């Protein structure tokens, strides 16, 4: 038998692995059912004025999807989180890259940046409202700041982690510092960047929702808060469910982009979060 023939007779994926995938899937669905049952049990025993009934939540979801209310609130929250996220993320990437070329300035400002991590951002909302008024600005400041820190810290660490020998050789090969930023450091720090993004995406949505509790008359945050004020527990649960779905969709998008950008990586895909 030639090697090609031998290769053809080998199964592409052993049955054991396929079976394991099936088992994992069954387990996931099982856990989902257990969760649903616990939720239903909780609603029944605590009473619907504390925990909404999962089936009523589902019915309400369908109802507001029909009326267009769901799309409207989701759009508002999505829009503000996306803009805030883009601003915070851009600052979090650009700043460490700019600082790379200025080591002395970096050493000088690093302790201040690290100290400002400790400032409770949500506590600044009243000040933001005072300074920027009741519009999108205070929301964007809050989201931007909450996104900025994890991105900044991860990109900063990513840049520091780049193998110095790769940089030396790239210079020997004639690469300018800006080319090194784009061709070497950018790629080397991507895994760090994406772990920062995986923290920031849910943060951006949470920040938008919290800002909407306080400012504005639209958005998922407004919907939840409005429902609470009317003792509509089902409504609050619907808002939370929509927020979770939003984060999950955005995370899936992120994983997809990460996979495409780092197709070269010899990595165990099962490790993914």
């Amino acid at each position, binding site marked *: 038998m030639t090697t090609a023939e031998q290769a053809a007779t080998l199964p592409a994926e052993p049955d054991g692995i396929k079976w394991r995938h099936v088992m994992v899937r069954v387990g996931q669905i099982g856990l989902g059912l257990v969760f649903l049952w616990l939720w239903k049990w909780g609603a029944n025993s605590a009473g619907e004025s504390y925990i909404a009934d999962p089936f009523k939540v589902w019915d309400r979801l369908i109802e507001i999807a029909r009326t267009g209310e769901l799309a409207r609130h989701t759009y508002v929250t999505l829009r503000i989180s996306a803009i805030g996220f883009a601003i915070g993320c851009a600052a979090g990437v650009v700043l460490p890259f700019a600082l790379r070329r200025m080591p002395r300035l970096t050493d000088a400002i690093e302790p201040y940046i690290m100290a400002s991590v400790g400032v409770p951002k949500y506590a600044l909302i009243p000040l933001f409202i005072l300074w920027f008024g009741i519009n999108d600005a205070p929301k964007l400041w809050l989201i931007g700041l909450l996104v900025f820190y994890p991105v900044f810290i991860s990109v900063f660490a990513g840049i520091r982690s780049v193998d110095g020998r790769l940089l030396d*050789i*790239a210079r*020997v090969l*004639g*690469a300018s510092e800006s*080319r090194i930023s784009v*061709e070497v450091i950018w790629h080397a720090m991507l895994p760090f960047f994406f772990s920062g993004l995986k923290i920031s995406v849910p943060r951006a949505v949470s920040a938008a929702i919290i800002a909407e509790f306080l400012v504005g008359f639209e958005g998922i945050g407004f919907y939840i808060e409005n429902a609470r004020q009317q003792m509509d527990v089902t409504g609050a649960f619907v808002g939370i469910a929509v927020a979770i779905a939003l984060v999950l969709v955005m995370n899936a998008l992120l994983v997809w982009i990460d996979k495409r950008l780092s197709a070269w*990586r010899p990595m165990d895909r099962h490790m993914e979060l």
Partner: protein
Amino acid sequence: MAALLEVRNLSKRFASRAGREPSPWIIRDLSFSVADGEFLTIVGPSGGGKTTLLNMIAQIDTASGGEIVFQSKSAPLGDKTSLKPGLNCQIGYVTQEDNLLPWRTCLENVLFPLMAQGRLNDETRAHAQSLIRAVGLEGWEKHYPHELSGGMRKRTSLIRTLVYDPPVILMDEPFGAVDAQTRVQLQEDLLRLWNLGRKTIVFVTHDITEAIALADRTLVLTRQPSSVAGEHIITIPRPRDIRDILTHPEFVDLYRRIRAQVQ
């Protein structure tokens, strides 16, 4: 032949940490010169500062004393910021580890210096392709470094430097980490490519056989702090058959003399 590269009284010690006694000299008063088109090999005990020497010539590390003169111009080696790594692409450097960019394919790695230097065009691309063929990497162009064998990565790293044609190439035990059979093939590849272009090569190794087989001249370095222990002109005629070099009568004599100097 005129010296293209001259190392004069070069010394190196790494900065000591505060409160400790000064770190020892790695290299002390090392002087030698390399002629244009010469293949110089440098042998010495491991940990003898050979890599540090090449790093200083490539200007990615500073010197503590002495000077390095390239094309009659002395390079400032005092502080890290005035270094010009690779001296404007005049000095190529094939390091011990292949240092390929893992997110670039074999071909993209070979094209990297051309792109970085703004010299990527149809002609240089074709040159890159011919080098890939010359070292038998055809069919592997689209593979990432982690998908290549150790020998293939070495070849990629070698032609990544050859592709932009620097007048001087430094090599730091480039074939150290591959098996004996692959190593002989790589040595043959290197000699064949060198024969085509006759560049100036400074090749560091701890393998005496390799040092003799490749060189026009071999320098032997002492233990730390490194200085020159001996110099040997290799008169074995070219082209050489690396597989048969061991049986060459001159080889045995050279091997004995060099062996005696390598402590």
